């Protein structure tokens, strides 16, 4: 436990870590999945695996929006930017995600009008400022960002804007968790549940995980102590043979979620029959499409989209890493062809991607620990 003293509250961290060591059964290998990319980032940043017993393995889940977006959707979005009348807008996370012919940033460098925005409302503002141009917002994200897109579309309709549309790639976390539970090569024993997604959807939607699959889920905050306390709560459930949803992050996550956010999403979006996830394949009813009532704001109806399907570069093993079958550094491209500066796969782009987090923190730490020249 040599790193404990670096934390803000070392005594509490040490106590949680000791409690975890007491709770684990020797000889039992625990596989716990942190669903959310924010947790993956925090776990690597704080080297939390160093204060855990060797028989607890943290498996990194699908909760990184740019990581699970298949390359074909990136190319579909970028195809819109070929139209000189279109201004394509996207969050910063999206700008460096590689498409088959380069990232949004590279398209911008080649002359396409691609702009980074911090809010979908910024894209709406652009549409107001440029009535002669077609402004498209490339929407990505789980339930953390889907309500903001829904409210933006409601405002667009209220303002009567005719030059604004959304290329909707919002996904929902529950079907992804179900797909993981149903996947034969996944043997996860319990889940560290998402923090911010849960502020929107609340805790009830997770109950099937406990009821139907007999596995515990604990929604967790992002501080090192939060994650360790969540692991304590999970281990206590496993020890007692219980499986229920518990809320470690109750100071931010209401059990019932955010009702206005859920209402706005229900008014604007409907479930797609199926959607392709990178690494997980097609998952039924796992993504959001724009409802008929908002059809005029739907880029997929408004423009001719090629519907591109691209297989990942052969050597890249993003899918295996996404499913937790491989650790990031076990991918053949990791740290060689694929780095945060020159990402081949999306997991290397976002700070929430397992590969970028591993590259930035775990690798640096192990490099520092090794003698120079080794």
């Amino acid at each position: 436990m040599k790193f404990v003293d670096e934390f803000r509250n070392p005594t509490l961290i040490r106590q949680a870590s000791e409690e975890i060591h007491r709770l684990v059964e020797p000889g039992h290998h625990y596989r716990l999945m942190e669903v959310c990319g924010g947790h993956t980032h925090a776990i690597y940043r704080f080297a939390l695996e160093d204060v855990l017993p060797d028989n607890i393995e943290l498996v990194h889940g699908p909760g990184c929006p740019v990581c699970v977006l298949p390359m074909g959707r990136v190319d579909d979005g970028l195809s819109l930017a070929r139209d000189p009348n279109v201004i394509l807008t996207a969050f910063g996370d999206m700008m460096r995600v590689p498409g088959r012919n380069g990232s949004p940033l590279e398209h911008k460098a080649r002359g396409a009008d691609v702009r980074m925005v911090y809010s979908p409302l910024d894209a709406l503002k652009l549409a107001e400022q440029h009535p002669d141009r077609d402004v498209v917002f490339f929407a990505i994200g789980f339930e953390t960002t889907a309500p903001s897109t829904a409210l933006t579309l409601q405002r667009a309709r209220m303002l009567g804007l005719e030059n604004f549309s959304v290329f909707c790639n919002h996904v929902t976390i529950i079907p992804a968790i179900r797909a993981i539970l149903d996947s034969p090569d996944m043997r996860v024993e319990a889940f560290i549940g998402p923090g911010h997604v849960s502020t929107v959807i609340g805790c009830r939607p997770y109950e099937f995980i406990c009821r139907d699959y007999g596995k515990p889920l604990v929604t967790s905050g992002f501080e090192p102590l939060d994650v360790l306390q969540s692991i304590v709560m999970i281990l206590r459930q496993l020890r007692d043979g219980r499986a229920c949803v518990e809320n470690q992050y109750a100071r931010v996550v209401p059990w019932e979620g955010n009702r206005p956010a859920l209402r706005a999403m229900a008014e604007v979006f409907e479930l797609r029959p199926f959607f392709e996830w990178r690494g997980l394949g097609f998952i039924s009813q796992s993504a959001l499409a724009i409802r008929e009532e908002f059809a005029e704001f739907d880029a997929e109806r408004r423009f001719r989209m090629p519907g591109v399907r691209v297989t990942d570069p052969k050597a890249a093993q993003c899918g295996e890493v996404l499913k937790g079958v491989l650790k990031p550094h076990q991918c053949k491209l990791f740290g060689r062809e694929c780095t945060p500066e020159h990402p081949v796969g999306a997991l290397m782009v976002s700070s929430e991607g397992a590969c970028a987090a591993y590259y930035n923190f775990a690798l640096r730490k192990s490099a520092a620990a090794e003698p120079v020249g080794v």
Partner: protein
Amino acid sequence: MCLAIPGKIVEFVVGQPHLAVIEVSGVRRRVNIDLLRDEPPALAIGDWVLIHVGFAMSRIGVAEAEEQMRLLAMLGEDRLAMEELEGYRFTEPPARAEEIA
């Protein structure tokens, strides 16, 4: 994108009930409060909220706000959070008088 930025409500915008001025580390910006204003109790000046992509998403206490700011700093994302906040373009920055108020 998934960064949550803690901010304190310092003003409601007259004539634009969907907006409030929030303050984060001395920087003031307008954000959308539609996701919080319909649910009781009513939002008040001095309340703390977590902000995602221009929208206040959840109410938090002052201790959680401090904790979130510290967490962003520990994750090395505090600068990014301020860039995001200062990058919101959907409303003009508050007028000078508001900033002083």
